[in-house]
């Protein structure tokens, strides 16, 4: 998801280092690396990496996220969310794929997997009212005939 330090990075990343504090609605288009403090709202259309020493007091939204620091707020990730052993999350977590390493701390509701129901479930749901109608009709015809 992220290239290692020192490798040539081709896409621009926003780096919020340990020497910086950001307050407000931070909305980025590219990858974001947080090593410092963020409060308010943090949203990126791409990947997010929260470093070990980072503290985020904000609701977080990203495409994919790797969390090793502390987040106090809800986390919503469209793709993969990975909590490392040093991660501390105080808030609800929602992701398509969730990986939690041993030692990670998660206080909040956890929702992983696709929101959408499978095709079979949908077909069954659609079929249920029709079956009920048929059963009612059959019951009514039985009463009439008797």
């Amino acid at each position: 998801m992220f290239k290692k330090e020192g490798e040539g990075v081709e896409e621009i990343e926003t780096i919020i280092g340990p020497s910086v504090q950001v307050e407000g609605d931070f909305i980025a288009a590219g990858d974001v690396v947080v090593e410092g403090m963020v409060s308010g709202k943090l949203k990126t259309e791409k990947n997010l990496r929260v470093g070990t020493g980072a503290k985020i007091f904000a609701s977080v939204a990203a495409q994919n996220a790797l969390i090793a620091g502390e987040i106090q707020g809800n986390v919503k990730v469209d793709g993969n969310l990975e909590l490392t052993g040093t991660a501390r999350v105080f808030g609800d977590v929602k992701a398509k794929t969730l990986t939690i390493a041993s030692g990670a701390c998660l206080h909040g509701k956890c929702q992983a997997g696709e929101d959408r129901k499978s095709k079979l479930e949908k077909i069954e749901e659609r079929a249920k009212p029709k079956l009920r109608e048929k059963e009612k009709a059959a019951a009514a015809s039985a009463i009439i005939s008797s």
Partner: protein
Amino acid sequence: MYLYLYDSFLNKKKYNTVLARIETRLTDLGIGGKIFRLSPLRNVEELVADEIRGGTKTIVVVGNDKTLNQIVNISARHDCTIGLIPIGPDNTIARIIGIPESEAACNVLAARMVKKIDLGKINNVYFLSGLQLDGSAVTLHCENQYVITPPRPKSAITICNLRPLSITGLGIAYFNPEDGLLEVLVQPPASGLFKMRKGSIASQSVIPFKKLLITSRGSSTSVLTDGQQIIKTPASVEVAPRKLRLIVGKERRF
């Protein structure tokens, strides 16, 4: 048609030989033109405006960073292409845009690789490379959405358009003057054994932006533009996308 602007420090006798060699090379390459020597008594803005009206398309600055920044600020308001022949010390911009020193720069001028690059603008003053400010006393309000505060005292803040030469480890996408963005670079104070690691990625912050407001936490502080002009806070900074046509070399760092 070319206009060559010589900085006043080139009047010193020690530069005569270099200038003579440069002039010969320019004539050989067929890109000779009018030569003007800058002096504190001469109004450069009027001179440049008159020459552009007279049909000059390319202004070549002969001097150092200070000379270039002075002319960039004027040429941003006119339609012309800027070239550079670096001579003497303080020529970091030339290294960033890939122009070799003195005579060799004439070949780059003749090759004429022109790039439209962004400029930064602080309170109606244009800058090419960046702004320096003291991080302990300022707050940056970015895009009217969030606030950046460096909590550590003595953090150095640089607002960059061109890549600072001290930065290593960050890819070519950073500090690109063609991307329509400026970058806030926050570097914590280096101390003790870690002084050598000041340029490491781990400790610094890089935040791209289009518009920000610099305010001071206490009394008004100063912002240094391209190392020459001092502007007091509060000051608004924004990017002027593709504002400058600049002749660059193959060895440029963007």
